[in-house]
């Protein structure tokens, strides 16, 4: 009697699973696998969701996806997948997948007040072009913008960056990574002079203590968490410390849970620094050789608008703090000032300025952060005894300071999404540097990322309003000149003025300075804080909004044109994860209907424009740069003609289908029979994803950011490579001579990043000698003080409100909500609150309540149990649910240095609906 098909399949699945996790497989089972997978083609790929970068294997048969499994050879996840990763194969085939361009129409014509009607790509592009030309003629390069994404592939990010900055001479392109990683970037720049972490995930298997600072890894990075739990259980000395504002799933395995008051992480970090000095534990050999001390201004505002002209009446009192702040008791002590003092915010325009100080000044600055002071300020659970909290803080310091322990600090949005996000990142390095516990296996401060290519696409390609590829910056003339040379542009084609950052693009849309907006692979009208303003700007004002999307989310709903996008396995691409690992994949299946890759959208649209449309003189309000007339970009057309261009050349020809790129031909053996719908549609015989990759990599080489050639990543044995890739070898730990070829021989360590490495000298309050001093090769140990959140609970809005993700959903849920099983596990967002707080408001579990802030209100169900436990005074709701737009509530204050929004600290009131 033969096995039934079901039993046969089960045997085969078990054998495949065993093989994937490295267990031996019986001969008979191996035969079952072979038979049931007949005709399947397995290929390596990458998970589309968080920043961990798990490898997955994808099987196709007859052009259809038939199975996915964890990639046993992927060093990141070693065969495992989390619940989100498990659905990579399904997210592409939702019934409501957008498969045709849609446009708002009335009487056969585009009409902002019309209903969505299917149109052809030609019709959609015609209207986009017409509106683009209208706005560009009126406003110039600053009137158009793109809200880009850390979920674009590297090549897509590169193509849009080039189209905006070189073609349209506009720096108004900024990614959703701004709201996710910008504070981490700003601190990498200020401390090390170069972006991205020194360490990698292998730190987990070397560490003795792992400290989570505002990172609920159990829910947000489950596969890394499985490595953390393995280390905790398999290594006797290993300990996990969870610092958080409420009990979450990561506390389940934590040895020490520290519940602190929002934003007092700034004070706790300084307490640790003070302890390091008090216990004589500074690693002076490391500090003297490799570090300097620095500080900057405190009066930098909160990243809000400089005017309250657009504020709702209820917002005005908080808005006032952008101009002047009355110091509370704790800030006064923490900043060595007087309680009640009014501090004018004089450094909002230049918040990142910093200067050298002495160790003596540094020591004086951390002196007020005693255990008594910090414990009183920071204790987050009103029901916890103060002495117990003090003992925990002391234990935390013990772990960092113990010379026998290797310590890794992990963080994500708890640090980054803060009005002092850059400062608290810098403080984390402060303690690791003081102890010399940095850039070594198991020792280091490690910034995790939330999106699959925040590093690869947004940061490395520089898809930001102030960046160019590979750590180059718009305001730097040498960086612009280098980029112009690489891109074959006439000198001064690039706009020297920083564009609008993510939040500012939305503010510009509200105040009429941006009128044409393209949104791709992100959902700003659900995910950006204080959305009541932006929804109005998109729908009620004379603005034109294009949204490239795979599914109908909130942003698609408020668009004027919706372009249907190809999803991950329907196109060629590459992502870069949080440990500098770059991974590529091939197109596996064709996109449905007329959906097409964003890179095709960029290039096809670029065919409609000529260089003469943009490379003549352009007005740029406020432009001021050396070598430029105020308010103007010069004409570069004459120079372009000298270089062999014709004014009639299309942007497509000049930027993308260049003679060099056309030599990279499609089809290519590297495809191994896989399709490429972009190459096929363009039809001129080149391989855009490979050609643009090869055009991009010279930016990275010789500068500590080296990427390998396209075909290398597609090698059968390669599972991504951690840059810098030098002589074919990846780099495990940056800045450490043992691992990093960029470190000078004999130096031991060298913090060789080049940005912000010549700074003035001063004391704790000001610059005393403006002459720049070189700090080449050194990392900066910053003193940054505690500062109170810009909005805190008061008599009227009496509770804290914080938002974030949950395990089953990802960001705004446009993909994961399409999978009904995920939808049902967490059917709608709930508001977690303490049972006593609920009771005091006449509420119980599952009751419908209003949550109201100065900015808006939403209805939501109350949850008093479940996976998160709030201390009294705190509430939390995730932001994935388009039925509960919690960003109607959230404040749009931001870190003034990084411009990253603070989603974690709004004040609300809650009452029965």
């Amino acid at each position, binding site marked *: 009697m033969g096995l039934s098909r079901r039993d046969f399949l*089960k045997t085969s699945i*078990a054998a495949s*699973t*065993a093989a994937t996790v490295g267990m031996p497989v019986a001969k008979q089972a191996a035969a079952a696998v072979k038979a049931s997978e007949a005709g399947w083609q397995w290929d390596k790929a990458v998970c589309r969701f968080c920043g961990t970068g798990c490898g997955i294997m994808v099987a196709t048969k007859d052009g259809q996806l*038939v199975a996915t499994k964890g990639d046993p050879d992927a060093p990141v996840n070693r065969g*495992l997948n989390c619940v989100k990763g*498990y659905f990579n194969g399904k997210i592409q085939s939702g019934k*409501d997948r957008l498969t*045709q361009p849609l446009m708002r129409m009335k009487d056969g014509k585009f009409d902002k007040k019309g209903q969505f009607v299917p149109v052809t790509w030609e019709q959609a592009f015609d209207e986009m072009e017409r509106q683009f030309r209208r706005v560009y003629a009126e406003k110039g390069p600053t009137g158009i913008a793109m809200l880009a994404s850390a979920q674009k592939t590297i090549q897509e990010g590169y193509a849009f960056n080039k189209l905006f900055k070189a073609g349209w001479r506009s720096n108004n392109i900024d990614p959703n990574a701004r709201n996710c990683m910008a504070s981490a970037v700003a601190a990498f720049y200020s401390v090390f002079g170069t972006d991205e972490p020194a360490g990698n995930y292998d730190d987990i298997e070397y560490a003795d203590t792992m400290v989570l600072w505002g990172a609920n890894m159990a829910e947000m990075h489950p596969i890394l968490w499985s490595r953390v739990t393995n280390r905790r259980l398999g290594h006797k000395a290993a300990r996990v410390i969870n610092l958080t504002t409420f009990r979450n799933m990561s506390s389940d395995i934590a040895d020490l849970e520290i519940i602190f008051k929002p934003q007092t992480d700034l004070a706790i970090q300084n307490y640790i620094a003070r302890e390091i000095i008090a216990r004589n534990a500074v690693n002076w050999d490391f500090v003297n050789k490799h570090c300097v001390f620095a500080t900057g201004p405190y009066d930098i505002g909160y990243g809000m608008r400089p005017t309250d002209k657009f504020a709702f009446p209820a917002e005005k009192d908080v808005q006032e703090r952008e101009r002047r702040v009355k110091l509370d008791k704790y800030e006064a002590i923490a900043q060595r000032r007087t309680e009640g003092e009014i501090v004018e915010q004089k450094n909002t325009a230049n918040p990142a300025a910093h200067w050298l100080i002495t160790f003596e000044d540094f020591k004086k600055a951390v002196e007020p952060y005693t255990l008594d002071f910090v414990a009183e300020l920071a204790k987050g659970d009103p029901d916890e005894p103060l002495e117990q909290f003090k003992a925990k803080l002391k234990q935390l310091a013990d772990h960092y300071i113990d010379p026998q322990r290797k310590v890794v600090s992990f963080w994500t949005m708890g640090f980054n999404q803060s009005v002092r996000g850059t400062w608290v990142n810098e403080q984390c390095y402060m303690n690791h540097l003081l102890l010399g516990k940095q850039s070594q296996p198991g020792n280091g401060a490690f910034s995790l990322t939330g999106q699959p290519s925040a590093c690869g696409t947004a940061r490395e390609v520089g898809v930001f309003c102030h960046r160019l590829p590979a750590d180059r910056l718009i305001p730097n003339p040498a960086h612009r000149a280098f980029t112009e040379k690489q891109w074959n542009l006439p000198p001064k084609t690039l706009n020297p003025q920083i564009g609008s950052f993510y939040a500012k693009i939305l503010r510009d849309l509200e105040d009429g300075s941006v009128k044409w907006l393209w949104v791709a692979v992100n959902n700003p009208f659900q995910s950006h804080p204080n959305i009541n303003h932006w929804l109005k700007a998109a729908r009620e004002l004379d603005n034109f909004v294009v949204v490239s999307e795979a599914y109908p989310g909130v942003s698609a709903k408020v668009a004027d044109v919706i372009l249907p996008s190809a999803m991950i396995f329907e196109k060629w691409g590459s992502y870069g994860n949080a440990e500098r690992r770059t991974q590529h994949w091939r197109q596996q299946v064709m996109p449905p209907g007329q959906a097409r890759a964003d890179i095709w959208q960029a290039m096809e649209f670029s065919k409609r424009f000529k260089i003469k449309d943009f490379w003549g003189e352009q007005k740029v309000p406020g432009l001021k740069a050396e070598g430029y007339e105020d308010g103007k970009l010069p004409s570069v057309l004459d120079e372009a003609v000298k270089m062999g261009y014709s004014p009639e050349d299309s942007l497509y020809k000049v930027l993308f289908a260049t003679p060099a790129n056309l030599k990279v031909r499609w089809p290519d053996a590297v495809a191994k029979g896989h399709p490429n719908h972009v190459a096929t549609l363009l039809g001129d015989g080149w391989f855009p994803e490979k050609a643009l990759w090869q055009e991009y990599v010279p930016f990275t080489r010789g500068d500590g950011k080296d990427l390998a050639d396209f075909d290398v990543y597609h090698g059968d044995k390669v599972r991504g490579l951690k840059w810098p890739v030098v002589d074919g070898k990846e780099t495990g730990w940056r800045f450490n001579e043992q691992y990093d070829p960029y470190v000078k021989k004999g130096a031991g360590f060298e913090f060789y990043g080049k940005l912000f490495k010549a700074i003035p000298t001063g004391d704790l309050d000001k610059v005393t000698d403006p002459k720049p001093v070189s700090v080449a090769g050194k990392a900066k140990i910053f003193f940054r003080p505690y500062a109170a959140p810009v909005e805190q609970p008061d008599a009227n809005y009496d509770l804290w409100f914080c938002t974030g993700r949950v395990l089953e959903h990802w960001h705004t849920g446009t993909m994961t909500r399409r999978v009904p099983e995920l939808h*049902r596990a967490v059917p709608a967002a709930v508001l977690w609150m303490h049972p006593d707080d609920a009771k005091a408001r006449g509420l119980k579990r599952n009751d419908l309540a209003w949550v109201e802030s100065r900015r808006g209100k939403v209805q939501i169900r109350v949850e008093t149990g479940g996976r998160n436990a709030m201390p009294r005074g705190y509430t939390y709701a995730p932001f994935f649910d388009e039925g509960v737009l919690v960003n109607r509530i959230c404040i749009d204050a931001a870190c003034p240095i990084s411009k990253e929004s603070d989603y974690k600290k709004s004040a609300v009131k809650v009452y029965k609906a």
Partner: protein
Amino acid sequence: MNLSGIFVAAKPEWLPSVVAELNALPGVEVHQVDEATGRIVVVQEAADIPAEIEGLKRIKALPHVVTAEMVYHYLADDRQVYDDLPAELVEQDSPACAVPAYLND
């Protein structure tokens, strides 16, 4: 048919009881056990995908289970994922193309 391959790790000293508890779960079959390291491979069959996710959560909640994660997902006979679309996403009738009602409401 919802079939998935799940990797489970248990402390080796508890292996026999974990295996027994796994086999007692509806739809769960233990296929392979490595006694030295505590590694187990199970195949789970569930009526629908919510049941499958719940099943994984049940496995994770068993005493002495250290890790339980999905490894293998069989899709081939399982293309009808969207029987149960949320009401606001049900498409409009339109001969040209389906425009989700959500976009125009």
